[in-house]
């Protein structure tokens, strides 16, 4: 791929511009669907964009005794990490930057926002923020292990660590959602926990510790942090769509290449929206559980189910190699 096209790929289409637009759109869909489930009307289409621009226009307050530079840099770090993760996720056919092992890179980059949230919470010298930060990291340990184990499944079955080649493997035979249903369910739960959405929004528990690590963020820092959460929603659902629902590739090749890519892109949109609908329904159907209950639930059920899933994949893989 010549550098000009690659630059276009990275910056415009399935790159950052599209990612930002799609992140705002997914936030809108999420809020609209949630509102409709609560018999409410819900926000207008451009609401996330308006929130973002308004927050950019707000005054930035750094509490006394807080190191302004780190406090300002943290959201930028989180946003950069999550946006680069998107480049390795296939949007229209395999991603040109794919290399063996980009699945691990994407997973690592997706974990950074939680660490940054903890840092912001700890830095902002506010009791609520510190407590929120500690809860964020505690929650990280609980759901991270099953989430990674379960995403190993497709890599093991497809025999490669690159998301794009996993998608190619799926194109030729069954999707992993059918092959590893347990893995698919745990991946969804893990994503819901990673994005700190309602059953797992313990760090940002609005009614207990004001806004958790977000309490002291104002102005453009808050804007960037909210954008990070939206972008990680896009990247997370795109990753699960790729690994479990076959991503943007069609099983049978379509003759004109661009037409195939267009249909693939539509498939990608449909799958990510489908995953988002599932996540919104979960968000609306449950209340927030306590951190110790999450601990019990996480280690007893999630981790063991994930291990069973990986064992099953290994056993099946062992027999199938002739």
């Amino acid at each position, binding site marked *: 791929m010549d550098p000009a096209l690659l630059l276009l790929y990275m910056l415009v289409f399935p790159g950052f511009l599209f990612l930002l637009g799609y992140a705002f759109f997914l936030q809108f869909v999420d*809020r609209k669907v949630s*509102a409709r489930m*609560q*018999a*409410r*009307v*819900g*926000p*207008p289409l*451009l*609401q996330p*964009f*308006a*929130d*973002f*621009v*308004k927050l*950019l*226009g*707000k*005054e*930035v*307050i*750094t509490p*006394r005794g807080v190191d302004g530079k780190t406090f300002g840099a943290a959201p930028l770090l989180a946003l950069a990490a999550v946006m680069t993760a998107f480049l390795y996720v296939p949007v229209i056919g395999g991603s040109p930057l794919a290399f063996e092992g980009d699945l691990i890179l994407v997973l690592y980059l997706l974990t950074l926002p939680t660490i940054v949230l903890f840092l912001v919470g700890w830095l902002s010298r506010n009791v609520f923020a510190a407590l929120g930060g500690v809860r964020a990291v505690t929650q990280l340990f609980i759901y991270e292990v099953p989430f990674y184990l379960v995403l190993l499944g497709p890599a093991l079955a497809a025999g490669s660590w690159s998301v794009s080649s996993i998608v190619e493997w799926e194109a030729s035979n069954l999707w992993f959602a059918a092959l590893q249903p347990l893995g698919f369910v745990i991946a969804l739960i893990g994503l819901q926990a990673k994005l700190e959405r309602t059953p797992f929004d313990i760090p940002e528990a*609005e*009614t207990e510790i*004001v*806004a958790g690590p*977000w*309490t*002291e*963020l*104002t*102005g453009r820092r*808050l804007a960037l942090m909210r954008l990070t959460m939206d972008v990680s929603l896009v990247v997370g659902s795109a990753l699960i769509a790729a690994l479990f629902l076959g991503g943007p590739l069609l099983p049978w090749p379509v003759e004109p290449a661009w037409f195939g890519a267009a249909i693939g892109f539509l498939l990608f949109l449909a799958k990510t929206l489908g995953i988002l609908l599932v996540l919104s329904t979960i968000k609306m159907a449950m209340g927030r559980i306590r951190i110790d209950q999450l601990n019990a639930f996480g280690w007893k059920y999630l981790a063991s189910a994930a291990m069973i899933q990986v064992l099953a994949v290994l056993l099946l893989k062992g027999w199938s190699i002739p």
Partner: protein
Amino acid sequence: MSLSQRLVNWARLKSPWITIFNSGACNACDIEAIATLTPRFDIERFGILSKGSPRHADILIITGPVTRKQALRLRNVYEQMPEPKYVIAMGACGASGGVFKGLYHVVDSVDEVVPVDLYIGGCPPRPDEIIDGVVKCLRCSRRTSPAAGRSGGGRRSVPPRRPSQRRRPQR
């Protein structure tokens, strides 16, 4: 006004975030303010979100007369909010202490403690009156909103009853 200025004004009108502060009210105004979030009145269709932390909010809705004990806390919450911020005093109590005027533990009206931008009458005002108040507060903010990010000192559209020179909040 430049394109960026128009864009920021548009964004400010489209997503005003509120936080409700109960400064000693009989909480009739509070349950009516919370009723605006619920399906029948639903302020999220105007992009209005109710935020917990004053740091995230643009509009501070104060319900009730300011009791002496709550005055300092109210001042504190007001100082924490980032510019450009607006204050709405709700109900008859916010305007003049209402039925509690003159009681020994009540500071008569809100604007002795914080400069107020808009008063919503009624005891308690109906949820649709509250929404109308917030929308009017936005309209008056459009005429005088400062350039993006610059926090203006004396740019209040409605001068408070007692012309107090409002110092910028110390960072």
